[in-house]
């Protein structure tokens, strides 16, 4: 039952990505293209995606987190770290470059697979390789002494 519910939640998330326009890399790149503002080609739509998502999540989280426990789990798994370490800047900086190159972030890339395009398959294969590499590097014994470990609960 919990598995089926998570499938349906993924489905709602994916439909939201499609309806909002996030599943279209051209729209994402036109949003990121602030240099296109003078020419009028800037597409501000994605600010509305973020606004709608954060508004609903902010209200929803404040209610859900008042519950004693989640429906299918024994407790809430919330990130606890508050420090600003190099990884919280370096990671998103690297991710942002990848996002700006192709116009895909992880969610829309996975949903793009269902559109049936070969380009999405290529991107997702490379993205998975990058994810595995990052986890491998983070777990290297020589690095764990130098780099603060990631918060396992933070996404």
């Amino acid at each position, binding site marked *: 039952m919990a598995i089926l519910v998570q499938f349906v*939640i*993924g489905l709602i998330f994916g439909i939201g990505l499609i309806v*909002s326009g996030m599943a279209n890399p*051209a729209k994402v790149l036109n949003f990121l293209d602030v240099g296109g503002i003078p020419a009028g080609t800037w597409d501000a739509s994605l600010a509305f995606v973020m606004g709608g998502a954060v508004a609903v999540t902010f209200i929803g989280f404040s209610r859900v987190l008042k519950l004693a426990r989640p429906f299918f789990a024994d407790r809430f798994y919330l990130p606890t770290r508050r420090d600003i370490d190099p990884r919280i800047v370096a990671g998103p900086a690297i991710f*942002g470059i990848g996002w700006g190159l*192709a116009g895909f972030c992880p969610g829309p890339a996975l*949903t793009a697979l269902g559109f049936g395009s070969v380009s*999405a398959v290529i991107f997702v294969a490379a993205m998975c390789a990058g994810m595995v590499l990052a986890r491998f590097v983070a777990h290297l014994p020589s690095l764990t002494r130098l780099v603060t470990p990631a918060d396992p609960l933070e996404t």
Partner: protein
Amino acid sequence: MVSTSFTPIASLVGGAMIGLAAVLLMWATGRIAGVSGIAARLFPPYEDREFAGRLAFVAGLVAAPVLVRLVTGSLPVQTIAAGPAVLIVGGLLTGFGSVWGSGCTSGHGVCGLSRLSVRSLVATVTFMAAGMATVFVMRHWS
């Protein structure tokens, strides 16, 4: 460059659905709806027993366009202008960076900002700035 039209209503509605999914996942499993974390943990090393649920969530993401096509008979336009080389480099950087920084647009952008997390705010501002800088270089410096 392919021009796209400004769609504030559809984007707001779609964004609200993304938010609804994030709230439902927190209600059901008690976990943050961060796609990079969920996808990355489909690969070893495995730290918990949530594999099946994560796979189901990702399957839902992939099945969404299939369902939309079944119900409405068509899919919205999707334009992927990048060639194979850019897709591979972009994919590697997106995968590596999102895991290295413990989150992407959903985990830090949607869930983190909603939790008023300063770490997520730093991450979100950084990837937006890096994305904008990259597009600026690609489109206006050549």
